[in-house]
């Protein structure tokens, strides 16, 4: 991916988000969300350079925002981002075993991506589904009432689906 390509894409996204907004100024977070969505789960560092030119902000101001929020990443992440809730309701209903199962089943720790590029594991603050805790979110889909077995099953199902898609 060349800088020119990123520049073109980011500029387009920037203009579009600006148009959609009630207030033109300072909608950096909305723009970053749109960029991340476009690149699939991450924001290339070159995008920050482009935004510097477009917004007139300094690079440090942009990095400051980019690194503050846990949902933004400047590193490529897996096709499926698993966000496992580590809040108290999940903790008291067996969350620790679920987290353990996720780490074992994927063979990675928090913040890491599986070698096949499929999964990235992240911890999440409360997902607001405490009624069916423990809970995790895979991309935009929530899974509740988790047990270690259920976790293995869900991961396996996704892997299976991916394998058949490749074929």
């Amino acid at each position: 991916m060349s800088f020119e390509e990123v520049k073109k894409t980011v500029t387009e996204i920037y203009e579009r988000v600006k148009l959609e907004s009630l207030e033109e100024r300072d909608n950096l977070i909305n723009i970053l969300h749109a960029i991340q969505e476009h690149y699939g789960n991450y924001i290339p560092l070159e995008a920050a350079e482009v935004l510097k030119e477009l917004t007139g902000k300094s690079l440090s101001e942009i990095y400051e925002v980019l690194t503050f929020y846990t949902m933004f990443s400047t590193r490529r992440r897996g096709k499926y981002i698993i966000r496992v809730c580590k809040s108290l309701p999940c903790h008291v209903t067996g969350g620790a075993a679920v987290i353990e199962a996720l780490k074992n089943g994927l063979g990675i720790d928090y913040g890491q991506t599986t070698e096949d590029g499929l999964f990235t594991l992240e911890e999440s603050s409360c997902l607001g589904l405490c009624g069916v805790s423990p809970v995790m979110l895979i991309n935009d889909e929530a899974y509740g009432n988790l047990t270690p077995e259920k976790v293995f099953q869900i991961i396996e199902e996704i892997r299976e689906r991916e394998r058949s898609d490749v074929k």
Partner: protein
Amino acid sequence: MPAVENTIVICAGGACISAGEISVKESLENTLREYALDEVVRVVETGCMGACDLGPIMVIYPEGVFYQKLDSNNVKKVVEEHLLKGRIVKELLYTGPTGEVKEKPQEELPFFKKQVKIATRNLGVVDPLSIEEYIARDGYFALTKVIKEMNPEDVISELKKSGLRGRGGAGFPTGLKWEFARKATGDIKYVICNADEGDPGAFMDRAILEGDPHSVVEAMTIAAYTVGASKGFIYVRAEYPLAIERFSHALKKAREYGFLGENILGSEFSFDIEIRIGAGAFVCGEETALINSIEGKRGIPRVKPPYPAQKGLWGKPTLINNVETYANIPPIILHGGDWFAQFGVEGSRGTKVFALAGKVNNTGLVEVPMGISLRELIYEIGGGVPGGKKLKAVQTGGPSGGCIPEKHIDTPITYDTLKELGTIIGSGGMIVMDEDDCMVDVAKFFLEFTVEESCGQCTPCRDGTKRMLEILERITEGEGTEEDLETLKELSEHIMKTSLCGLGQTAPQPVMSTMRYFWDEYEAHVKEKRCPAKKCKALTRIVIDKEKCVGCTACARVCPVNAITGSVRNPHEIDPEICTRCGSCLEVCRFGAISKVSP
């Protein structure tokens, strides 16, 4: 067109969706088509009905029969039996703890019966994607009344009469807040909805946005009319994709119907709302941090005063309320402040939505009049603690709150009584804990959260909580000293006094309240190196009783880390080095051969 004979309402709240609501609905619709019932049976997806642990749920009207724990297979049976043959499918009805079967739990069960639904009046009733259904439930009537019949002062006076206090956590009187924003001078003013519900264990705002988004749109518009704002923002957590989707849809529809945009309802008044999405930072729930985040900056709190009502978004007067607070506004306008004030008690008027989670039989959302006791909430509505375990404590108020021990469960829940007990109502999360939960572990848990989520701007919160966490880690590892306990107390006091924002000022609360009520547990950890609840890994072991073990291999099969070895029909062994004390083996052993011991 044939007349609709039955309406089936399916709960499409986040919890039911996670339990498979989508495949249930598809299967239901396919079966209806198969039997050519699709024109006489209407299927409606609605917001959270509250009883999360029973999901997926559906109710068949006009009979009002309540089916629970559905899946794509058993829902076919409901069509074939109930709709075609008129026979109720007993095994899918709610079954009480004593085995009695209930057809209409919504009318008969204490879980539903004791509730008074104001903020959640439309959850489980309307289709959140239908503005017509919202209007059919008097939706946008309050906005019309305000624009046609009331001036801003009337609105503020009704709010004051109602006694409504902010439902986001701090409990500031809403009428007063609106009055400040109204009186603030400025050519531009803003209205914000704080939908950054971050407290662990609270999920009412998510449910309201997903299940009744128009009530928030309507209330924000009323607020804008009252304080003189022309633009509004709703700041929603990125963790709530469904809420964002349904709210966006509501905005679009409200604009189409003339409830938002230029010249609302033909008046001079114009107002519009934009969604801003968070990006994973707990601190953004603090109003000034949220404002910074909308402005495209790091979400760090600002020093107060000035308050947002004077100097908020882009330095302009800004009214900011949370989702549940807004959801209460239209009914207050329609029925009057006195009507709202008849519910609840002095100082805590109206109802409050609580989220029951943790070790309680009926998890989910309940809206009850303020002043109800914890006992009613946990035992009558929540159905008590599962597995015959003993209730130990209830955590309220999230990381800014504390634990209420079992002995105080007859206390009525109000802003003031909970404050006396060393906690807060907060946003209404109630995490129920039983005898298996360690209170030092709970305190540590919240400190971990605070340390991770501290914005890092001020030293007491950034470094102070970190030192507290290190001490708590030492204690739960069995390496704590009595001096550590003293240091914890001192640090707590300093952090509370010197932190910049409300989050830092309350961060030591979980430690303070657990020390206050569970001092003996702290002492057991420090002096005897023992965890009374047998929760802290370093102080606990799992052992297999060779006499009782029959070698069924159930434990070895569920162990996620393969710590259990042994051959069939021979006693198994557990390797304490590998074992993570997750307890999976304990749950599957049918012979009572596995137990936890401490030390």
